[in-house]
């Protein structure tokens, strides 16, 4: 006897146990892939559906309880419900969907509210949506979209500088978008991973053959013995040190040792404890301090004291200059692991066709993934196809392979499609994190407030494997001066192996951590000199014609002064407001204290002193349709739209008339990885070149009577072009002197907040963010990046702390909700860069660099509490207040 209910207006009967999760029933048994699953625990709200009109998390509903009831999902509501349709349109107009993985949950959760009230106030919208997490947008555009469905305006300007709706936006708001877990064929086998339960463990397998033979529905088990190629991968060639499956010892909790593949129905209920393996916990080192003890065994043979690599930049004589300084500020900060917490856990599937393998799933780096899979399978890279599905957020962690080698290996051996979906816990345990940092800085200035010297020492916990640790170690010394002129500078970093999940790339590659120490020191110096904190920064801002700490000199592209100037009025007003509010608070014996903080940031776009090309291809087919092969993966940030806008402008073809062909290594050329704030700048340049080249070729054919009469090439194009751009950089010498990046972007942000001096709770009131983007290609997408970056900076500053083995879910690991993000005003500054397309600079990482230090400086301004051990949770803020008094 089945369970009968109404699904999106039609009756349906499902033969499932009454306790089966509704989310799984809808996705896997009723084709409702518009219902997303982000946590399976009610913590993220992605799977929100309406049960008899009320919002519920489908992952928490036993299907037995919906018998005789009505379930509405986004795809159904979009057919019948006017308020949902209107809201979906509003999401598109406001740019409220970025990656789009949380969009179905948000639209469904807002529907009951909008049925009651078409123009809800912000608080009502927050209450309705407080249960849906979004990691991309910073929620402000979501709030605007929900509160303003009745007043929509269309922006028709699709040129560079206009804000057309994102070209891939429509499926994101209808539920039709296909993410990594939405694309596997129905007959795909399901893979589950056996992982180490300890930070460090030896292990031995039992009788795996007997397990396979005796477990109904299980087809195969794979271990390191089954890898035909090399059981080792990484992202930077000299540092390939991570196995797909551990061979003798697991180096972190969550490291895979085996994969079990079987029929979907059986694997749904698979219990990893039934697998024949025994683990033996070994003594683990979880911090660099422990790992660097001379008696500790090396995690990897070549790393003395477990130091994986070091970074260094020096100019002038920092030691003497610090001695001679009138004022010095010494700051020591500690930050923890930060989890990317994209709402889409890793997923994908692989299918073998002959001697080729194709992978479909989420990624930020399709070509790097392709090459890794080829090496693991021992086949040629041209025999691997990596197709990016829509990717539900990445922020750096989806650069590394995770799901890919598992399904590739299984599909390769089994010659059947194989699918994997990481649980939230697996995703949090096993994929890369932001590096914990222990940073000691000393900055010195003269009596007039001119910063003369800086000394920086940073130790980064790189976890069990290298991943992007070398990039962090190298980037940080180049950026740790901040966007300021400092003549005498010495910065050293170490990245140290520990038995933690690998640290890798996370929006800013270590620079956000460094900026915290540096910007706190700047506040300290400004206060010592008695200068206004913004004026102090402006006084020291890097200017055109002055060398950076790597000796690079810019002629016209440095925009930090412009950013700081743009904040001047907001800064003055905010300080006045805080002063007045504090006067009133003291008079009324209130426990609230108000403060304002400011911080700057800069960030070099693209690889550090290494080749970093992007190629964009385009063609016109016999029907006269312009096709853009755009391989810069859009993980929500908007590359599909921005690259197409740039191409459209350069080519002179309307954006709406361009057919977009997105990332697939068989058909889109290598546009590099989506990282290092490089896509708008590097792939944008390639798109501009390709657009201009195609225009030139088309114009030559201008008098052709009919396109369909012209011969087509192997790709079906009458004309086609392929253009490559590689940013000009120069190597760094042994002192880190050289030209690491062609382009830097600049930023300054201010934060207004209130501290409860009795509880240590921080209430954020307002942000103003000024960003020098060179040229704003798409202002609405830029605002979305800024607001999303500020939200992640808020998380870094106030609440996020991944503790391996302890906070492996989204209720113990907190990221900001819609109630935690105050208004964020964006000021777009345009100091054109001669290298950027139309003058554009990168932005993706710049957006969160100033946020955390601005918040910490505001907390200090408000309450005298100097929190240096992040996150600044209420207990730490209160402890710092008590210490101060």
């Amino acid at each position, binding site marked *: 006897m089945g369970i009968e209910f109404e699904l999106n207006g039609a009756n349906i009967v499902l033969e499932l146990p009454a306790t089966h999760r509704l989310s799984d029933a809808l996705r896997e048994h009723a084709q409702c892939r518009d219902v997303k699953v982000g946590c*399976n625990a*009610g913590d993220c*709200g992605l799977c929100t559906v309406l049960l008899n009109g009320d919002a519920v998390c489908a*992952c928490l509903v036993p299907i037995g309880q919906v018998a005789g009831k009505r379930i509405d999902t986004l795809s159904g509501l979009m057919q019948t419900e006017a308020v949902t349709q209107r809201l979906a349109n509003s999401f598109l107009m406001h740019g409220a969907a970025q990656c789009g993985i949380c969009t179905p949950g948000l639209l469904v959760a807002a529907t009951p509210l909008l049925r009651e009230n078409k123009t809800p106030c912000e608080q009502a919208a927050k209450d309705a949506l407080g249960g849906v997490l979004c990691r991309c947008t910073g929620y402000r555009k979501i709030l605007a979209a929900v509160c303003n469905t009745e007043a929509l305006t269309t922006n028709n300007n699709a040129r560079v500088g206009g804000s057309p709706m994102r070209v891939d936006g429509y499926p994101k708001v209808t539920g039709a978008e296909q993410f990594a877990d939405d694309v596997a064929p129905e007959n795909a086998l399901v893979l589950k991973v056996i992982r180490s339960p300890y930070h460090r463990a030896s292990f031995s397998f039992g009788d795996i053959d007997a397990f396979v033979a005796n477990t109904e529905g299980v087809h195969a088990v794979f271990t390191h013995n089954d890898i035909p190629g090399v059981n080792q991968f990484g992202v930077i060639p000299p540092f390939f040190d991570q196995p797909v499956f551990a061979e003798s010892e697991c180096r972190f909790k969550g490291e895979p040792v085996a994969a079990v593949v079987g029929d979907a129905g059986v694997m749904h209920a698979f219990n990893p404890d039934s697998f024949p393996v025994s683990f033996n916990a070994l003594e683990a080192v979880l911090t660099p301090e422990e790992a660097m003890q001379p008696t500790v065994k090396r995690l990897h043979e070549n790393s003395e004291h477990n130091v994986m690599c070091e970074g260094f930049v020096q100019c002038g004589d920092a030691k003497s200059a610090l001695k001679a300084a009138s004022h010095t500020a010494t700051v020591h900060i500690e930050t923890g692991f930060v989890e990317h917490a994209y709402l889409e856990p890793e997923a994908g599937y692989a299918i073998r066709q002959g001697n080729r393998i194709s992978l479909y799933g989420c990624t930020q780096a399709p070509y790097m993934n392709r090459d890794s899979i080829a090496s693991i399978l021992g086949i040629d890279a041209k025999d691997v196809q990596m197709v990016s599905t829509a990717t539900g957020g990445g922020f750096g962690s989806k650069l590394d392979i995770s799901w890919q080698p598992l399904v590739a290996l299984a599909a390769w051996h089994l010659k059947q499609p194989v699918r994997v979906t990481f649980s939230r816990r697996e995703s949090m345990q096993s994929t890369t994190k932001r590096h914990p940092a222990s940073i000691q800085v000393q900055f010195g200035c003269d009596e007039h407030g001119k910063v003369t010297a800086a000394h920086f020492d940073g130790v980064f916990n790189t976890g069990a494997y290298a991943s992007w640790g070398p990039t962090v170690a190298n980037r940080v010394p180049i950026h740790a001066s901040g966007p300021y002129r400092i003549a005498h500078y010495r910065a050293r970093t170490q990245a140290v192996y520990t038995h933690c999940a690998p640290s890798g790339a996370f929006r800013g590659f270590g620079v956000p951590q460094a900026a915290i120490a540096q910007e706190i020191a700047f506040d300290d110096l400004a206060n010592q000199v008695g200068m206004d904190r913004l004026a102090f920064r402006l006084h020291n801002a890097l200017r055109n014609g002055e060398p950076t700490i790597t000796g690079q000199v810019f002629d016209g592209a440095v925009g930090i002064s412009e950013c700081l100037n743009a904040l001047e009025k907001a800064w003055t007003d905010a300080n006045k407001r805080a002063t007045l509010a504090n006067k009133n608070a003291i008079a009324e014996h209130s426990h609230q204290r108000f403060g304002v903080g400011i911080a700057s940031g800069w960030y070099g776009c693209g690889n550090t002193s290494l080749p970093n090309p992007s190629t964009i291809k385009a063609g016109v087919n016999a029907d006269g349709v312009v096709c853009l092969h755009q391989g810069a993966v859009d993980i929500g940030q908007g590359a599909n739209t921005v690259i197409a806008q740039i191409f459209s402008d350069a080519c002179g073809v309307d954006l709406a008339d361009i057919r977009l062909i997105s990332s697939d290594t068989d058909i889109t050329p290598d546009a590099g990885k989506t990282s290092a704030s490089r896509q708008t700048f590097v792939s944008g340049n390639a798109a501009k070149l390709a657009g201009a080249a195609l225009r030139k070729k088309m114009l030559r054919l201008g008098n052709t009577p009919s396109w369909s009469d012209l011969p087509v090439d192997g790709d079906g194009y009458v004309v086609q072009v392929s253009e490559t751009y590689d940013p000009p950089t120069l190597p760094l010498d042994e002192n880190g002197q050289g030209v690491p990046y062609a382009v830097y972007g600049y930023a300054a942000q201010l934060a207004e907040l209130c501290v409860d001096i*009795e509880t240590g709770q921080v209430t954020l009131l307002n942000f103003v963010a000024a960003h020098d983007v060179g040229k704003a290609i798409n202002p609405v997408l830029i605002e979305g990046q800024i607001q999303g970056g500020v939200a992640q900076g808020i998380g870094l500053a106030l609440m996020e702390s991944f503790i391996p083995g302890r906070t492996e879910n989204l209720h113990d690991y907190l990221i900001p909700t819609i109630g935690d993000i105050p208004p964020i005003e964006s000021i777009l500054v345009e100091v054109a860069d001669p290298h950027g397309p139309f003058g554009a600079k990168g932005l993706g990482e710049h957006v969160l660099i100033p946020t955390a230090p601005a918040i910490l400086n505001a907390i200090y301004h408000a309450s005298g509490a100097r929190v240096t051990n992040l996150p600044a949770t209420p207990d730490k803020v209160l402890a710092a207040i008590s210490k101060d008094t």
Partner: protein
Amino acid sequence: MSLALALKQLANNPLPVIAGGTDFYPALQDGAAPAHAIDVTQLSELKGITLIGNEWRIGAAATWTELLQADLPPAFNAIKAAARDVGSVQIQNRATLVGNICEPSPAADGVPTLLALDASVELQHAGGTRRIALQNFITGVRTTQRKPDELVTAIYVPAPLNTERSAFTKLGARSYLVISIAMLAVHISTNEQGHINRCALAVGSCSPIAQRLFDLETALNGLAINTATEQQAVQALIQSYPFNELSPIDDVRGTADYRLTVVRAVLQRTLLSVIQQCLSISSVHP
């Protein structure tokens, strides 16, 4: 299905019990659910929030949203405030109050306010019914006096005085979907002379089981709270109160020291706000 049948099933086989599922599924991690469970939402006897005689009965299937929508006396404002702070709308629409006390974590949102309301728990098994005070029902972290063949069928709250006012404060590190660092419920009633004639204070997340502050209640009972001087005396009592009932720990959400400090500060504020509410009744009805 009827309650009697469910109890019979439980007597034969100690099946897991499910209501809103908001604890049941997360506890499975990502494992499959057991195929069979007793679903209390299917038992019509366990629905609703009703006044029966001199007691409010909160059925085991009643959700936080139902509580929010119920017409209840002002003494229930604290528990309604707690309801608004439970997870998110999605959780409030599903989670039940009874579910909240059945596998109670130290941070179970409903427990402090229910303790302050002097709630009791009704348990039924195939052979009969028993009633236990909530403070005795919960025996530790996620443990209770429920036996495997019993169902918790309802929570009972004695009808409060019309003059009782209440407030609830939850401290967390973010706005929604948050497990509390500390929380407290304050219930006060005053007589016509402005003297406290009932006082119930409870603190959660600061001990394995949420605790009433009985000694402080005793000290406050009978005190006059009309004037600023009288209210300062109340504050002084809180300032010097040792909070021996509490045994907070250091965890990812906060330190033990922090919890004690903040409970004292927030108790002062919350108590003063409830006192103001009580005084405004007497000014409306002199």
